[in-house]
């Protein structure tokens, strides 16, 4: 039966503790065993609990496990507990399964690294934090996991901290997400002061009871939480950290993009859905942000040279789809896409990693090419992942999940957003196959130095399998109408308000979407495999060149932030170096320093002076006692 759920997050945490404390003294195999094994056991536990959960169907479709009361004094008694419902079941399963495969992959991928145990320690902490986040039944604990995820991303992006660029990327990720985190913390304070609790279910119940739909407080609270989600999930306008986060080792990228970090925002919104429902403007903002992000990031992805940066922008874009789905109340569609995306994106990253180590750590796609023959295994798995990302029809999981999103967007009556999503489909298939063609087709340009070993390829195969079949848990009406996933998730999340449209319409829209995808593939085939000169000619022209540069730089967001925020801020900081406030702080410092110096003088080292101190104290004390 359902019990002892806590072992799932506790196992990776224990792995972290062991590795952090004695990791350096252990042999590499032991480190790998503990690192991957703890997550593996957590995965087994997660599968076991999920099976139990679905088999026994606890009342209300949820299971709470109260672990302990942190401290109980003066009316303040935060309960520490875990919460399992279909939403967290899905999250927990994906996090542990994908996390475990990435850990296994890392055993070989990181084999040459000096800081082997440090790597696995951070990775375990990462997985553990994410599990705490998705299983928390209290916003305080959720925030703990949230911050833990942020900390681990910082540590792992800057894993090779010897290079200044990596350290800068880590700091950038930390600072940018911190902007969102701060907003979220304020949101939590707001919820606590207004509702008097941080227990998630209680918050939702009280919010719905206390606040009418569209009330200002609800909008403020939901907006602040949205800001937090936007920061973590790298959506507009806080998406700038993710492309730079490629500085970390490739398994880290896979973990951040697929299983842990960027999906935290999606989870948060889905978890707090009642709050968002009573704040319609915020809900609309979620959808608009998602749609805008998916198009913008897709355009940037088309122009990148670095294979990992393409994938990074594609993640931003795909999470944009999830936000879009959340924004139109298609909760299960968002979660469905989260699941399939986790599989194929980790597959793509790990495939890209295999390519990169085979090519002497070369990441520029234009220096690759023709790897189809040299790395057949990697090629086929990568191709499966790419098809899924581009959502080629019928055999890929992306087809089902993204199809559901698009259909939900249309059926809930958002034609403009639907148009953006359709455009995004086209762009997605263009940049995906651009990547495939540049890397695996054409003339070989580089030398393959090493072939990936079985421990690297194993997870790829498993993920390729999942990327193919994971779509079967939800099949749309024209193809058989199988709603296992939606039925499960809708136990926890409301059913989207879809208009009852005829099946024929749905068929038409499926075809439209497939048309744009296939068009994109053809486009990529022509431009990047057959007629390279077209692209070259186009980018040679001033307008084309400018657009290319603009997209390449991620729509100039970094430039905007630097000129509009960072530079004025630095200037202002310089200018106000000697202002009145500064004097206050310096004054406080000087006062404390002066007091320290004066008081230190009383410590003369002379024992008789110390006795004088006692006597003076005694005289004062007796005087006070006697005369008061």
């Amino acid at each position, binding site marked *: 039966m359902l019990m002892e759920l806590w072992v799932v997050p506790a196992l990776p945490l224990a792995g972290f503790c062991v590795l952090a404390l004695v990791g350096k003294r252990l042999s590499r195999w032991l480190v790998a065993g503990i690192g991957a094994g703890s997550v593996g056991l957590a995965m087994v536990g997660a599968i076991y609990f999920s099976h139990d959960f679905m088999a026994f169907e606890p009342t209300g479709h949820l299971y709470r496990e109260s672990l302990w009361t942190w401290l109980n004094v003066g009316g303040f008694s935060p309960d520490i507990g875990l919460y399992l419902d279909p939403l967290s079941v899905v999250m927990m399963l994906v996090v542990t399964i994908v996390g475990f495969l990435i850990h296994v992959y890392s055993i070989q991928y990181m084999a040459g690294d000096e800081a082997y145990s440090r790597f696995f320690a951070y990775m375990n902490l990462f997985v553990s934090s994410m599990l705490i986040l998705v299983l928390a039944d209290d916003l305080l604990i959720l925030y703990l996991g949230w911050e833990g995820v942020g900390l681990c991303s910082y540590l792992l992006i800057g894993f090779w901290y010897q290079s200044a660029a990596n350290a800068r990327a880590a700091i950038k990720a930390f600072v940018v997400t911190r902007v969102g985190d701060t907003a979220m913390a304020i949101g939590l304070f707001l919820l606590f002061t207004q509702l008097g609790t941080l227990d998630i279910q209680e918050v939702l119940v009280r919010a719905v009871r206390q606040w009418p739909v569209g009330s200002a407080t609800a909008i403020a609270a939901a907006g602040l939480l949205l800001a937090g989600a936007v920061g973590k999930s790298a959506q507009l306008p806080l998406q700038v950290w993710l492309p730079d986060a490629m500085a970390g080792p490739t398994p880290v990228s896979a973990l951040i993009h697929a299983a842990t970090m960027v999906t935290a925002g999606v989870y948060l919104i889905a978890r707090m859905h009642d709050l968002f429902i009573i704040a319609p403007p915020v809900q609309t903002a979620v959808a608009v942000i998602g749609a805008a992000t998916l198009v913008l990031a897709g355009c940037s992805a088309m122009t990148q040279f670095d294979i990992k940066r393409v994938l990074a922008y594609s993640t931003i874009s795909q999470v944009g789809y999830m936000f879009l789905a959340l924004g139109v109340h298609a909760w299960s569609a968002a979660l469905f896409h989260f699941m399939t995306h986790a599989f194929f994106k980790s597959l793509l990253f790990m495939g890209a990693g295999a390519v990169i180590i085979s090519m002497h750590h070369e990441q520029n796609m234009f220096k690759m090419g023709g790897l189809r023959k040299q790395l057949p295994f990697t090629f086929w798995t990568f191709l499966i992942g790419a098809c899924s990302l581009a959502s080629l029809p019928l055999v890929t999981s992306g087809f089902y999940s993204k199809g559901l999103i698009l259909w939900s967007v249309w059926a809930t009556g958002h034609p403009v957003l639907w148009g953006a999503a359709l455009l995004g489909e086209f762009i997605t298939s263009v940049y995906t196959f651009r990547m495939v063609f540049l890397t695996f087709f054409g003339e070989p340009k580089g030398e393959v130095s090493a072939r990936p070993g079985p421990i690297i390829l194993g997870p790829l195969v498993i993920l390729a399998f999942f990327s193919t079949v994971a779509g079967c848990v939800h099949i749309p009406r024209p193809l058989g109408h199988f709603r296992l996933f939606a039925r499960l998730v809708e136990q926890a999340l409301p059913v989207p308000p879809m208009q009852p449209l005829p099946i024929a319409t749905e068929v038409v829209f499926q075809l439209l979407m497939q048309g744009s995808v296939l068009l994109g593939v053809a486009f990529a085939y022509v431009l990047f495999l057959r007629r390279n000169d077209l692209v070259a000619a186009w980018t040679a022209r001033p307008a084309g060149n400018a657009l290319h540069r603009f997209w390449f730089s991620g729509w100039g967001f970094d430039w905007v932030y630097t000129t509009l925020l960072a530079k004025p801020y630095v200037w202002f900081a310089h200018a106000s170096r000697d202002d009145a406030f500064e004097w206050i702080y310096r004054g406080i410092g000087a006062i404390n320093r002066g007091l320290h110096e004066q008081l*230190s003088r009383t410590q003369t*080292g*002379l024992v008789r002076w110390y006795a004088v101190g006692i006597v003076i104290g005694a005289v004062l004390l007796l005087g006070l006692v006697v005369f008061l």
Partner: protein
Amino acid sequence: MATIPIHYGLLLAALLFVVGLVGVLVRRNILFILMSIEIMLNAAGLAFVVGGARWGRADGQVMVIIILTVAAAEVAVGLALVLRFHGWFKSLDADRASEMRG
């Protein structure tokens, strides 16, 4: 039988205590400082005797015996330390011991 008022006894004890205290503060020789501490302890002993006499009970005198023994133990360790101190500083000047400060 007429007795001395208790306040006189306590006053005497207090005077003795202050004599010892002043001794601690003004003497630089460690031996004299230790002696002064003995005087302070014995002043307390005297006060206990006075109290015991006032309430007509023996526990005040028991306290005196305890104070005496404790003072002896303290002095024994104190003398050992003084010897060690002399070995290091070649002097019995308490003010020499100011290696640590600040």
